[in-house]
């Protein structure tokens, strides 16, 4: 199952659906990095609204995505973590430290725009 990625100006938006296999997540990681390079994107938003469970693998993968994208000079924001999922994550000890998070797509875009402005 491929993850749809939209381009909105200098921002890429990846919307993750529920029930993503490990392989899908790996493909997403590779794909996003490629596209950031190709489009010279400044930011990536990963929308996890549909994820009903975030386990350690998913958390690690999102951290890796953010890390690799930062190496390409772009900023990643994870948006749409559901309250219940957030609760389970913190009890499991998954805090996504060093990764930016925002409430939803709108907030994520606002955050990235503010960041671009301060850079320029």
């Amino acid at each position: 199952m491929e993850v749809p990625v939209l381009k909105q100006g200098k921002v890429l938006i990846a919307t993750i659906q529920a029930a993503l296999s490990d392989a899908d997540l790996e493909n997403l990681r590779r794909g996003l990095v490629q596209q950031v390079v190709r489009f010279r994107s400044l930011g990536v938003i990963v929308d996890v609204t549909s994820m009903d469970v975030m386990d350690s693998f998913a958390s690690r993968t999102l951290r890796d995505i953010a890390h690799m994208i930062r190496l390409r000079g772009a900023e990643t924001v994870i948006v749409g973590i559901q309250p219940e999922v957030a609760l389970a994550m913190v009890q499991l000890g998954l805090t996504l430290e060093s990764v930016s998070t925002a409430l939803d797509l709108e907030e994520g875009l606002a955050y990235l725009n503010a960041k671009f402005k301060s850079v320029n």
Partner: protein
Amino acid sequence: MAKPASIKEVPRADRAAELAQSEATSELLRELVAHLRQNRTQLREEWVQRISETRLLTAMTKEEIFAEATSVYDSYVEALETETFEALQAYAQNLSERIIPRGVETHEVVGIVLLLRDVLARSLFAKYQADFHKLNRILDAYEPAANRIANTVAVGFVQERERTIRQQQEAIRELSTPVLQVRERLLILPIIGVIDPQRARQLTEQLLRGIRTNRAKVVVIDITGVAAMDVTVANHLVQTVEASRLLGATVIVTGLSPEIAQTLVTIGVDLGKMNTVGDLQGGIEQAERLLGYKVSPSPEPQ
């Protein structure tokens, strides 16, 4: 056919004796109940008098005490008469439901029932003082029943009280975790009193829901009103801060006492990384700064 006196046919004799005994008891109880009914007015008056002397039921007016005393007296006598206690139990529960909200306490309820027991016993002494033997038998019939009655009323009251307390605790839990929206994008969560793990969890769930509904970007959690926090609850607090961040909200903790700060350090929290401010006012000001209220407005989006 007469049996030799030395040989006792124990079972039959015992059974007969038992039967005779219980009949005698019932007979005595009937006599007792008749006496209590006959002297109802006087004995009830005496009881109410004793109640006010010992300063019980101060939460109630004289009229109320009299009305309840009448009901209790009649239920008491009925229980003695029927030797059944369901009606009394039902009455005790009903009575408790009414007087608990008035602030009547357990020792008062137990006290007045024992006073009634006393008043009635003394009237028996007075009546049967000439016949000591009869008095003894009457008391033998009276005491177990009277004890059972005292027990039924007291237990009924205590159970109702416990039920009420549980209800109140639940209500307090609900009420005392209000998530307040003070300004746009700013939520305040003042926590007061004792937090147990269940309440802490409820609190976190409410806050996260609130962050999503109000699209909050900053949350001020004020724990000035929290006396102490054990390690479990301290962890809940840390988890609340972390979970809020996952929803894109920054948390400022205010009102941290030295004791609670110590607890947090003990569980390995780096206070340097946690956003803490001395008091609620300071916390709100910092929140406003973070949201760009005090400084010039943030740049317009593209």
